[in-house]
């Protein structure tokens, strides 16, 4: 009987001691959960605000790039047109002098044939160059737009991921008592979302290779136009020389 009473006393002591400890521990975890919940509520708008600020910078830069490209192309077209006009005049002066020096009908006809061949070669060269420029610009514009679309998608994915993660963890921190685990999970998920964005970004930047290819195509097309022109002009010169002096070797 004495023994039982002693056991009961120990049990009662343990119960009375442990209950407050357990209550305290429960409250402590709940408080940690509340702190995390409050943190999420407090920081979420800050992240949204930062997204908006950085988004504005991206849009500003995008507009600047678009303007600069248009300015560049306009300037290039102007310079090209200016040069062409200047050289048209000079070519006509050369043609006039050739006609002036031609004495016989054969020489006059040779000059006319030369002029016609050169004019056709000039038109063909300019058309080929203009086509190369237009094709290049259209492809560049499409590439630029595709890049912007891909960037927009990557940004939206990141925004949505962050929103989903924070919503989920906010709900969990209210119901779950393990604040430490929730916090760690939250951090891991945010890091994963950032890494996904960086991976998307790296993929988008592979556009450099596409642009390099477009540049190569443009250069090759212009080079071909120039080579074709040189061949045509050389032929015109040889034809002229043969016509005015059939016995001479060109």
């Amino acid at each position, binding site marked *: 009987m004495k023994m039982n009473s002693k056991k009961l006393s120990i049990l009662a002591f343990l119960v009375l001691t442990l209950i407050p400890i357990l209550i305290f521990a429960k409250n402590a975890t709940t408080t940690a959960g509340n702190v*995390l919940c409050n*943190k*999420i509520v407090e*920081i979420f708008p*800050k*992240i949204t605000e*930062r*997204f908006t*600020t*950085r988004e504005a*910078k*991206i849009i500003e*830069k*995008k507009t600047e*790039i678009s303007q600069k*490209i248009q300015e*560049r192309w306009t300037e*290039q077209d102007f*310079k*090209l047109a200016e*040069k*062409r006009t200047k*050289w048209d005049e*000079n*070519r006509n*002066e*050369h*043609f006039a*002098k050739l006609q002036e*020096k031609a004495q016989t009908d054969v020489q006059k006809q040779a000059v006319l044939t*030369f002029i016609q061949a*050169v004019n056709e070669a000039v038109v063909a060269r300019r058309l080929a*160059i203009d086509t190369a*420029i237009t094709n290049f610009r259209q492809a*560049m514009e499409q*590439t630029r737009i595709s890049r912007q679309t891909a960037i927009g998608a990557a*940004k939206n994915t*990141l925004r949505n991921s962050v929103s989903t993660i924070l919503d989920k963890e906010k709900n969990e921190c209210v119901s779950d008592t393990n604040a430490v685990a929730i916090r760690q999970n*939250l*951090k891991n998920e*945010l*890091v994963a*979302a*950032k890494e996904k964005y960086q991976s998307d*970004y790296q993929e*988008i*930047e592979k*556009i*450099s290779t596409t*642009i*390099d290819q477009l*540049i190569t195509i443009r250069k090759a097309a*212009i080079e071909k136009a*120039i080579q074709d*022109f*040189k061949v045509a*002009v050389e032929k*015109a*010169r040889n034809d*002229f020389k043969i016509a005015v002096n059939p016995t001479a070797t060109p």
Partner: protein
Amino acid sequence: MTGKNTIAIIIVILVIMLVPVIYFLNKQIILTPGVKEGEIALPQATGNIDDAVDALLKEIDDEQSALNGVEDEKSLIISDSQEISDFSQSINENEF
């Protein structure tokens, strides 16, 4: 001796005066009136077929100079890379 020194001084002064004049004249010859720096001067028409063809070849060189610098367009298009990359910096997981 004094006479020789005087002549030497006069020669030095003349050289100093002539250097900028020669430089200026040289630049005028290279540029040719009406031709901007970096541009190809228009060849004079002579009535010779070879000169006419040479002029056509110079025409191509000059036209090509207006088509250069296409690589800059690539740099321009991707010049927002930093801003795009920094977008994810909006999140700092250590804030929680």
